């Protein structure tokens, strides 16, 4: 009546007698052996995540050297050591190079790491919820919704007050949520959102929101509107350390909460009904994840504007390398997304030095063609 469950048996003989005949499909080479090989374990998680963390740190040290003025690794380590020893960032002690490094480049890189991590993570969870590998906060219009909220707040003059840090992310959240509600409603009435409806919804939302944003910038004072336009294109500007700290707490908190849903995200990719039949209160879980996505996107857009395609390119690449399990995909995408944006921003700072390109232009130029490639040549995989 039951099959004995023997927890000690690590592997199963593939030649087990079975009344169901083998289909004659040759087992994939190298995969036929131990069954458990394809399962994510704590050990595999650490062996992937630890190098990624190390690589991110190394990339910070590498990227921080580039800029209008080259600061060599030795000097970087010197300055960092000095700052860590004394806890002082005064210019007398660390010199001009130190000030550039500590007050401009490093916070900007760390901001890039955070923003990239958040965009990639939101991309991962939106893709899982909508069961569509092309979903991305930028493509779906979540970013432009958030940008509209933030632009409105700037127009009303909140942006320049001391409230900016706490209010702008909330305005972004409200705008991003508006887009997500539209997408969510569409997904609800279709069951699974077909790729074309999804993209169409995104295109329409994006054009409505950008029309409104352009209207807002057109009625702003000229000096403010120039700044707003630059921000809209997606730029990273060095934040103060307290601001960076608050942002980091807020965003890592959000990422942590998303990570807690990793296993449910896996199950949700089976489809809404299968997920419910597996014991997930899907409406509740989805609402929570959509809210978190809007909160994170809102905060990210309020500091960095619209940086596109990170949320689509990175999860794709990471999924190809590490598989689809969200327990690994989500944190790995976060780190890879962070690294990607650090590299893109370093290019934005240095390519036309001393002038700067908005980093959003670089990610769009890299991500857009990739998006078209997926849409045209790989569409059989997800339409």
């Amino acid at each position, binding site marked *: 009546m039951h099959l004995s469950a023997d927890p000690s*048996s690590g592997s199963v003989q593939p030649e087990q007698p079975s009344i169901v005949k083998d289909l004659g499909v040759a087992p994939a080479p190298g995969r036929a052996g131990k069954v458990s090989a394809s399962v994510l374990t704590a050990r595999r998680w650490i062996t992937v995540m630890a190098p990624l963390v190390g690589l991110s740190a190394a990339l910070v040290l590498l990227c921080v050297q580039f800029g209008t003025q080259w600061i060599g690794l030795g000097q970087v380590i010197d300055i960092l050591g000095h700052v860590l020893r004394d806890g002082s960032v005064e210019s007398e002690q660390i010199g001009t190079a130190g000030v550039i490094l500590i007050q401009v480049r490093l916070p900007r890189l760390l901001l890039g790491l955070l923003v990239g991590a958040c965009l990639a993570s939101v991309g991962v969870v939106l893709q899982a919820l909508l069961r569509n590998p092309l979903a991305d906060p930028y493509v779906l219009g979540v970013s432009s919704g958030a940008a509209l909220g933030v632009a409105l707040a700037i127009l009303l003059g909140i942006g320049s007050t001391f409230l900016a840090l706490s209010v702008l992310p909330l305005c972004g959240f409200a705008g991003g949520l508006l887009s997500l509600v539209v997408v969510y409603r569409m997904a609800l009435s279709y069951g*699974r959102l077909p790729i074309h409806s999804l993209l169409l919804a995104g295109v329409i939302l994006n054009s409505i929101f950008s029309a409104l944003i352009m209207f807002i910038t057109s009625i702003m004072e000229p000096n403010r509107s120039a700044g707003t336009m630059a921000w809209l294109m997606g730029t990273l500007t060095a934040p103060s350390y307290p601001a960076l700290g608050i942002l980091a707490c807020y965003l890592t908190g959000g990422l942590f909460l998303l990570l807690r849903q990793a296993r449910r995200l896996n199950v949700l990719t089976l489809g809404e009904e299968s997920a419910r039949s597996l014991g997930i209160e899907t409406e509740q879980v989805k609402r929570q994840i959509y809210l978190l996505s809007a909160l994170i996107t809102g905060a990210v857009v309020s500091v960095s504007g619209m940086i596109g395609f990170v949320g689509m390119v990175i999860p794709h690449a990471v999924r190809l390398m590490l598989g689809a399990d969200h327990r690994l995909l989500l944190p790995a995408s976060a780190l890879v997304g962070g690294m990607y944006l650090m590299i893109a921003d370093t290019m934005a700072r240095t390519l036309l030095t001393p002038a700067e390109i908005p980093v959003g232009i670089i990610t769009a130029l890299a991500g857009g063609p990739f998006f078209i490639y997926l849409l045209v040549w790989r569409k059989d995989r997800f339409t």
Partner: protein
Amino acid sequence: MSRSLENEHGMTGSAIALRKAYEVRSLRFRYHPFGQGAADWVLNGLTFDIEAGEILGIVGPNGSGKTSLLKLLVKVLRPDDGDLALFGRDLGAMPQVEVARTVAFVPQESPQVFSFTVMETVLMGRYPHHHGQTWSAGFGWESAEDLSIAEQAMQYTDLTHLAGRSVMDLSGGERQRCMIARALAQAPQILLLDEPTAFLDLQHQMEICAIVRRLKEERGLTVVLVSHDLNLASQYCDRILMLKAGALFRLGPPHEVIDVDVLRAVYGCDVLIDRHPESGVPRVTMPQYRSTKSFDDRS
């Protein structure tokens, strides 16, 4: 919490057989599409029991409410009216996760757009058994027990050699077996299958049917399957429930339900029914095409 594939009430097969897996009383259901009023009744006043350990086939014309009924049984849909009891407990009051530890559901189509492996997909069936430990429900790793149960489920459905393959690269028959293995990993007492053999060729149809029969005989599983294939239902089911326009038309063993008069009343067409050469169960054959009268008149 169930710790093995054995049923969690620790009952012997015969004790289980005396119990009712489901008691359905005057069940009514209709969809409530967003932005529109309520639609017509999909199911209108169904009353019947499902015995533990039986294979029940649900058949009926398109739109007669078969799939809706199956989804109501696993609480994916909620009834508008009437009572549903699962092993004597009110289904409406049971948390979804508890339902998931008793009932497993395999929907008709399960397209997967991400490259999960077969093993990962089967392991998703262990999710309901991790609920409660809040952290491990959302994150956490599979226990040795989860792995061994998933491996057994894959062995049962002959998928072991495909464990590391992406589900997107599977053939239709393999994907269906993968979904059944995922359902078995839930260690359920009841298995609900929606059109398990649709779109499958003959060999794969027979495989799925053999798995279903084996599950009943070896594990005492209750199986409820929806099918359009009357011959398959006749051959593999203990009892057949014939639905007509959301109401129960006939419920009984195959020879009572697969009947010329019943089929004419339900499907509105005449068919030939003889006996299966081996088992003697009713076998449905489409009659030879005859030209219509008006055509005859002209010639």
